[in-house]
Protein backbone atom coordinates (compact mmCIF):
# COMPACT_ATOMS: atom_id res chain seq x y z
CA UNK A 1 0.00 0.00 0.00
CA UNK A 2 1.14 3.55 -0.67
CA UNK A 3 1.20 5.29 2.72
CA UNK A 4 2.11 8.70 1.27
CA UNK A 5 -0.70 9.51 -1.11
CA UNK A 6 -3.23 6.79 -0.26
CA UNK A 7 -3.46 5.64 -3.87
CA UNK A 8 -4.82 2.22 -4.77
CA UNK A 9 -1.72 0.08 -5.05
CA UNK A 10 -1.42 -3.63 -5.65
CA UNK A 11 -0.28 -5.35 -2.46
CA UNK A 12 0.93 -8.84 -3.27
CA UNK A 13 0.16 -10.75 -6.48
CA UNK A 14 -3.13 -12.14 -5.22
CA UNK A 15 -4.04 -9.45 -2.72
CA UNK A 16 -4.79 -5.76 -2.99
CA UNK A 17 -5.52 -2.86 -0.75
CA UNK A 18 -8.37 -0.53 -1.55
CA UNK A 19 -8.47 2.89 0.09
CA UNK A 20 -12.09 3.79 0.69
CA UNK A 21 -12.19 6.67 3.21
CA UNK A 22 -15.96 6.86 3.26
CA UNK A 23 -18.23 7.77 6.17
CA UNK A 24 -19.93 4.74 7.58
CA UNK A 25 -23.20 6.61 7.80
CA UNK A 26 -22.90 8.07 4.29
CA UNK A 27 -26.13 6.42 3.12
CA UNK A 28 -27.97 7.71 6.19
CA UNK A 29 -26.52 11.20 5.71
CA UNK A 30 -27.63 11.33 2.06
CA UNK A 31 -31.19 10.35 2.99
CA UNK A 32 -31.05 12.94 5.80
CA UNK A 33 -30.19 15.63 3.22
CA UNK A 34 -33.20 14.53 1.14
CA UNK A 35 -35.39 14.73 4.25
CA UNK A 36 -34.13 18.25 4.95
CA UNK A 37 -35.02 19.34 1.40
CA UNK A 38 -38.44 17.76 1.83
CA UNK A 39 -39.02 19.65 5.10
CA UNK A 40 -37.90 22.89 3.38
CA UNK A 41 -40.37 22.29 0.55
CA UNK A 42 -43.14 21.75 3.13
CA UNK A 43 -42.12 25.06 4.72
CA UNK A 44 -41.67 23.51 8.16
CA UNK A 45 -38.95 23.62 10.81
CA UNK A 46 -38.01 20.04 11.73
CA UNK A 47 -36.88 19.39 15.31
CA UNK A 48 -35.26 16.17 16.54
CA UNK A 49 -36.03 15.55 20.24
CA UNK A 50 -33.49 13.33 22.02
CA UNK A 51 -33.61 12.16 25.65
CA UNK A 52 -33.62 9.05 27.79
CA UNK A 53 -36.94 7.23 28.23
CA UNK A 54 -39.25 9.08 30.58
CA UNK A 55 -37.56 12.50 30.43
CA UNK A 56 -40.88 13.98 29.29
CA UNK A 57 -40.69 14.34 25.50
CA UNK A 58 -44.32 13.38 24.87
CA UNK A 59 -45.58 15.37 27.88
CA UNK A 60 -43.72 18.46 26.61
CA UNK A 61 -45.43 18.07 23.22
CA UNK A 62 -48.85 17.60 24.86
CA UNK A 63 -48.38 20.79 26.90
CA UNK A 64 -47.04 22.62 23.82
CA UNK A 65 -50.25 21.65 21.99
CA UNK A 66 -52.38 23.10 24.81
CA UNK A 67 -50.47 26.37 25.10
CA UNK A 68 -49.68 27.01 21.44
CA UNK A 69 -53.27 26.59 20.36
CA UNK A 70 -53.81 28.82 17.33
CA UNK A 71 -50.36 30.43 17.41
CA UNK A 72 -48.30 27.50 16.21
CA UNK A 73 -49.34 24.54 14.07
CA UNK A 74 -47.30 21.40 14.44
CA UNK A 75 -47.25 17.70 13.66
CA UNK A 76 -45.29 14.85 15.21
CA UNK A 77 -43.36 11.81 13.99
CA UNK A 78 -43.14 9.46 16.99
CA UNK A 79 -40.36 6.90 17.25
CA UNK A 80 -40.62 3.98 19.65
CA UNK A 81 -39.51 0.39 19.75
CA UNK A 82 -43.10 -0.82 20.17
CA UNK A 83 -46.70 0.44 20.53
CA UNK A 84 -48.76 3.34 19.13
CA UNK A 85 -49.22 4.91 22.58
CA UNK A 86 -47.29 8.14 22.08
CA UNK A 87 -48.93 8.93 18.73
CA UNK A 88 -52.34 8.31 20.33
CA UNK A 89 -51.51 10.71 23.19
CA UNK A 90 -50.56 13.42 20.68
CA UNK A 91 -53.62 12.81 18.44
CA UNK A 92 -55.83 13.13 21.53
CA UNK A 93 -54.67 16.77 21.64
CA UNK A 94 -55.85 17.31 18.06
CA UNK A 95 -52.31 17.22 16.63
CA UNK A 96 -51.50 15.12 13.52
CA UNK A 97 -49.12 12.34 14.53
CA UNK A 98 -47.70 9.14 13.07
CA UNK A 99 -45.96 6.36 14.92
CA UNK A 100 -42.84 4.65 13.62
CA UNK A 101 -42.03 1.46 15.50
CA UNK A 102 -38.43 0.40 15.04
CA UNK A 103 -39.07 -3.18 16.17
CA UNK A 104 -36.07 -3.27 18.44
CA UNK A 105 -33.71 -0.64 17.05
CA UNK A 106 -32.60 1.83 19.70
CA UNK A 107 -32.67 4.93 17.47
CA UNK A 108 -34.41 6.45 14.45
CA UNK A 109 -32.45 6.71 11.21
CA UNK A 110 -33.04 8.91 8.17
CA UNK A 111 -34.77 6.12 6.21
CA UNK A 112 -37.36 5.56 8.95
CA UNK A 113 -37.99 9.29 9.17
CA UNK A 114 -38.41 9.46 5.37
CA UNK A 115 -41.15 6.86 5.72
CA UNK A 116 -42.59 8.89 8.60
CA UNK A 117 -42.74 12.07 6.50
CA UNK A 118 -44.85 10.34 3.83
CA UNK A 119 -47.17 8.79 6.42
CA UNK A 120 -47.51 12.17 8.10
CA UNK A 121 -48.40 13.91 4.82
CA UNK A 122 -51.34 11.51 4.53
CA UNK A 123 -52.36 12.17 8.14
CA UNK A 124 -52.09 15.97 7.76
CA UNK A 125 -54.36 15.84 4.70
CA UNK A 126 -53.27 19.19 3.20
CA UNK A 127 -53.26 21.00 6.58
CA UNK A 128 -50.06 22.98 6.85
CA UNK A 129 -47.70 22.99 9.82
CA UNK A 130 -45.02 25.37 11.11
CA UNK A 131 -43.03 22.74 12.96
CA UNK A 132 -42.58 18.97 12.67
CA UNK A 133 -41.25 17.32 15.81
CA UNK A 134 -39.44 14.02 15.46
CA UNK A 135 -39.61 12.36 18.85
CA UNK A 136 -36.68 9.96 18.86
CA UNK A 137 -36.59 6.58 20.61
CA UNK A 138 -35.90 7.19 24.32
CA UNK A 139 -32.12 6.79 24.53
CA UNK A 140 -29.38 9.31 25.28
CA UNK A 141 -26.65 7.42 23.42
CA UNK A 142 -27.45 5.90 20.02
CA UNK A 143 -29.75 8.57 18.46
CA UNK A 144 -26.89 11.08 18.62
CA UNK A 145 -25.04 9.39 15.74
CA UNK A 146 -27.88 9.63 13.22
CA UNK A 147 -28.72 12.81 11.29
CA UNK A 148 -32.43 12.59 10.50
CA UNK A 149 -32.58 15.68 8.30
CA UNK A 150 -33.71 17.90 11.17
CA UNK A 151 -33.03 21.64 11.24
CA UNK A 152 -32.57 21.76 15.01
CA UNK A 153 -31.61 19.15 17.55
CA UNK A 154 -32.97 19.40 21.09
CA UNK A 155 -31.58 17.27 23.91
CA UNK A 156 -33.55 16.93 27.17
CA UNK A 157 -32.60 15.78 30.67
CA UNK A 158 -35.16 15.57 33.49
CA UNK A 159 -34.45 16.50 37.11
CA UNK A 160 -34.81 12.92 38.50
CA UNK A 161 -32.09 11.70 36.11
CA UNK A 162 -29.39 13.79 37.77
CA UNK A 163 -27.25 16.75 36.71
CA UNK A 164 -24.26 14.59 35.74
CA UNK A 165 -25.94 13.38 32.53
CA UNK A 166 -24.22 15.85 30.14
CA UNK A 167 -20.79 14.75 31.43
CA UNK A 168 -21.72 11.07 31.18
CA UNK A 169 -23.36 11.22 27.74
CA UNK A 170 -21.37 13.94 25.93
CA UNK A 171 -22.06 12.80 22.34
CA UNK A 172 -25.76 13.68 22.60
CA UNK A 173 -24.80 17.28 23.47
CA UNK A 174 -22.08 17.83 20.85
CA UNK A 175 -24.41 18.38 17.88
CA UNK A 176 -27.41 19.76 19.80
CA UNK A 177 -28.75 23.30 19.42
CA UNK A 178 -30.86 23.47 22.58
CA UNK A 179 -30.61 21.75 25.97
CA UNK A 180 -33.84 21.58 27.99
CA UNK A 181 -33.93 20.61 31.65
CA UNK A 182 -37.42 19.23 32.30
CA UNK A 183 -39.49 18.53 35.45
CA UNK A 184 -38.04 21.52 37.34
CA UNK A 185 -41.12 21.39 39.61
CA UNK A 186 -39.28 18.41 41.20
CA UNK A 187 -36.11 20.39 42.07
CA UNK A 188 -37.00 20.58 45.81
CA UNK A 189 -37.06 16.78 46.01
CA UNK A 190 -33.90 15.84 44.11
CA UNK A 191 -30.22 16.61 44.48
CA UNK A 192 -30.01 18.20 41.02
CA UNK A 193 -27.77 21.19 40.29
CA UNK A 194 -29.06 23.24 37.35
CA UNK A 195 -25.72 25.10 37.27
CA UNK A 196 -23.73 21.86 37.05
CA UNK A 197 -25.94 20.46 34.30
CA UNK A 198 -25.73 23.66 32.22
CA UNK A 199 -22.02 24.30 32.73
CA UNK A 200 -21.06 20.71 31.91
CA UNK A 201 -23.26 20.76 28.79
CA UNK A 202 -21.69 24.07 27.69
CA UNK A 203 -18.22 22.64 28.29
CA UNK A 204 -19.04 20.09 25.58
CA UNK A 205 -20.80 22.56 23.28
CA UNK A 206 -20.32 26.28 24.08
CA UNK A 207 -23.00 27.33 21.54
CA UNK A 208 -25.79 25.39 23.24
CA UNK A 209 -28.93 27.35 24.18
CA UNK A 210 -30.59 26.26 27.43
CA UNK A 211 -34.13 26.34 28.83
CA UNK A 212 -35.37 25.01 32.17
CA UNK A 213 -39.06 24.15 32.35
CA UNK A 214 -41.84 22.07 33.82
CA UNK A 215 -44.66 20.92 31.54
CA UNK A 216 -46.72 20.20 34.68
CA UNK A 217 -46.45 23.56 36.47
CA UNK A 218 -46.02 25.49 33.20
CA UNK A 219 -42.89 27.28 34.45
CA UNK A 220 -40.49 28.04 31.57
CA UNK A 221 -43.02 27.02 28.90
CA UNK A 222 -43.22 30.63 27.62
CA UNK A 223 -39.49 30.53 26.91
CA UNK A 224 -39.88 27.25 24.98
CA UNK A 225 -42.76 28.69 22.94
CA UNK A 226 -40.76 31.84 22.10
CA UNK A 227 -37.84 29.64 21.03
CA UNK A 228 -40.20 27.83 18.64
CA UNK A 229 -41.77 31.10 17.41
CA UNK A 230 -38.27 32.45 16.74
CA UNK A 231 -37.41 29.41 14.62
CA UNK A 232 -40.65 29.70 12.65
CA UNK A 233 -40.14 33.42 11.98
CA UNK A 234 -36.61 32.89 10.66
CA UNK A 235 -37.28 29.67 8.71
Amino acid sequence: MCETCGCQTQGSSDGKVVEVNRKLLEANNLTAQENRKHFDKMGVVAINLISSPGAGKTTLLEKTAELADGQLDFAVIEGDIETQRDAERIRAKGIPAVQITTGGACHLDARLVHKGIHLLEGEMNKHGADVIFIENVGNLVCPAAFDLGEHKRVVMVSVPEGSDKPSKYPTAFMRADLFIITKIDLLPYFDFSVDEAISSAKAINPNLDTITLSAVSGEGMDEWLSFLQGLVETR
Partner: protein
Amino acid sequence: MHELSLVQELLGQVMAVAKEHNAKRVTRVSVEIGPFAGVVLDSFDFAFEALKGESVLLEGASLHIETPPAIYRCTHCGATTQESVEGFEESPLSARDFFQRGRCPKCNKGELYPVGGDEILLKQIELE
Protein backbone atom coordinates in the same frame (compact mmCIF):
# COMPACT_ATOMS: atom_id res chain seq x y z
CA MET B 1 -26.25 -0.91 21.08
CA HIS B 2 -26.40 0.94 17.74
CA GLU B 3 -23.01 -0.69 17.06
CA LEU B 4 -24.93 -3.50 15.36
CA SER B 5 -26.56 -1.04 12.90
CA LEU B 6 -23.18 0.58 12.27
CA VAL B 7 -21.53 -2.76 11.52
CA GLN B 8 -24.40 -3.66 9.16
CA GLU B 9 -23.72 -0.41 7.25
CA LEU B 10 -20.00 -1.19 7.31
CA LEU B 11 -20.40 -4.71 5.92
CA GLY B 12 -22.77 -3.41 3.22
CA GLN B 13 -20.11 -0.93 2.07
CA VAL B 14 -17.33 -3.54 2.27
CA MET B 15 -19.39 -6.00 0.18
CA ALA B 16 -20.05 -3.33 -2.47
CA VAL B 17 -16.32 -2.52 -2.78
CA ALA B 18 -15.36 -6.22 -2.82
CA LYS B 19 -17.85 -6.90 -5.64
CA GLU B 20 -16.61 -3.87 -7.60
CA HIS B 21 -13.13 -5.43 -7.51
CA ASN B 22 -14.33 -8.99 -8.21
CA ALA B 23 -12.68 -10.12 -4.97
CA LYS B 24 -12.88 -13.73 -3.78
CA ARG B 25 -12.51 -12.78 -0.17
CA VAL B 26 -11.95 -9.82 2.13
CA THR B 27 -8.99 -10.30 4.48
CA ARG B 28 -8.85 -7.06 6.45
CA VAL B 29 -11.16 -4.13 7.12
CA SER B 30 -9.80 -0.88 8.63
CA VAL B 31 -12.06 1.69 10.21
CA GLU B 32 -11.44 4.95 12.04
CA ILE B 33 -13.73 5.72 14.97
CA GLY B 34 -13.54 9.21 16.48
CA PRO B 35 -13.13 9.56 20.25
CA PHE B 36 -16.55 11.30 20.51
CA ALA B 37 -18.44 9.04 18.09
CA GLY B 38 -20.29 7.41 20.98
CA VAL B 39 -19.22 3.95 19.84
CA VAL B 40 -18.29 1.16 22.25
CA LEU B 41 -15.29 -0.43 20.52
CA ASP B 42 -15.77 -3.85 22.14
CA SER B 43 -19.42 -3.96 21.01
CA PHE B 44 -18.41 -2.85 17.51
CA ASP B 45 -15.82 -5.61 17.34
CA PHE B 46 -18.29 -8.14 18.72
CA ALA B 47 -20.92 -7.16 16.13
CA PHE B 48 -18.30 -7.50 13.35
CA GLU B 49 -17.35 -11.00 14.50
CA ALA B 50 -21.01 -11.98 14.83
CA LEU B 51 -22.13 -10.69 11.42
CA LYS B 52 -19.16 -11.46 9.16
CA GLY B 53 -20.02 -15.18 9.14
CA GLU B 54 -23.19 -14.42 7.18
CA SER B 55 -21.13 -14.02 4.00
CA VAL B 56 -18.46 -16.29 2.49
CA LEU B 57 -16.78 -13.19 1.14
CA LEU B 58 -16.36 -11.73 4.62
CA GLU B 59 -16.01 -14.69 6.98
CA GLY B 60 -12.18 -14.60 7.00
CA ALA B 61 -11.88 -10.83 7.47
CA SER B 62 -10.17 -9.26 10.45
CA LEU B 63 -11.18 -5.87 11.81
CA HIS B 64 -8.69 -3.12 12.55
CA ILE B 65 -9.91 -0.07 14.48
CA GLU B 66 -7.94 3.19 14.56
CA THR B 67 -8.87 5.82 17.12
CA PRO B 68 -7.55 9.32 16.40
CA PRO B 69 -6.72 11.51 19.44
CA ALA B 70 -9.32 13.76 21.00
CA ILE B 71 -8.90 17.41 20.03
CA TYR B 72 -10.11 20.27 22.22
CA ARG B 73 -10.37 24.01 21.52
CA CYS B 74 -10.26 26.86 24.02
CA THR B 75 -13.28 29.15 24.46
CA HIS B 76 -10.95 32.08 25.18
CA CYS B 77 -7.82 31.91 23.00
CA GLY B 78 -9.12 29.49 20.36
CA ALA B 79 -5.97 27.34 20.50
CA THR B 80 -6.38 23.60 20.08
CA THR B 81 -4.93 21.00 22.42
CA GLN B 82 -4.50 17.30 21.80
CA GLU B 83 -2.79 14.34 23.42
CA SER B 84 -0.20 15.17 26.06
CA VAL B 85 0.54 18.80 26.72
CA GLU B 86 4.05 20.27 26.40
CA GLY B 87 5.62 21.72 29.51
CA PHE B 88 4.22 19.02 31.72
CA GLU B 89 6.78 16.31 30.93
CA GLU B 90 7.50 15.50 34.57
CA SER B 91 3.91 14.65 35.31
CA PRO B 92 2.37 14.53 31.86
CA LEU B 93 -1.22 15.66 31.65
CA SER B 94 -3.44 14.78 28.72
CA ALA B 95 -5.72 17.18 26.90
CA ARG B 96 -8.58 15.30 28.55
CA ASP B 97 -7.22 16.19 32.00
CA PHE B 98 -7.35 19.88 31.08
CA PHE B 99 -10.87 19.43 29.65
CA GLN B 100 -11.97 17.89 32.94
CA ARG B 101 -10.26 20.65 34.94
CA GLY B 102 -11.99 23.23 32.75
CA ARG B 103 -8.74 25.09 31.99
CA CYS B 104 -6.85 25.73 28.75
CA PRO B 105 -3.15 24.81 29.22
CA LYS B 106 -2.10 27.51 26.72
CA CYS B 107 -3.77 30.68 28.04
CA ASN B 108 -5.04 29.41 31.40
CA LYS B 109 -8.14 31.59 30.92
CA GLY B 110 -10.69 29.76 28.81
CA GLU B 111 -12.22 26.29 29.03
CA LEU B 112 -11.65 23.46 26.59
CA TYR B 113 -14.42 21.90 24.54
CA PRO B 114 -14.18 18.93 22.16
CA VAL B 115 -13.97 19.63 18.39
CA GLY B 116 -15.08 17.05 15.82
CA GLY B 117 -14.04 13.52 16.58
CA ASP B 118 -17.51 12.09 16.02
CA GLU B 119 -16.79 10.64 12.58
CA ILE B 120 -16.83 6.95 11.77
CA LEU B 121 -14.93 6.13 8.56
CA LEU B 122 -14.33 3.03 6.49
CA LYS B 123 -10.66 3.64 5.73
CA GLN B 124 -9.32 0.68 3.84
CA ILE B 125 -10.08 -2.87 2.73
CA GLU B 126 -7.66 -5.67 1.84
CA LEU B 127 -8.93 -8.10 -0.77
CA GLU B 128 -7.83 -11.31 -2.45
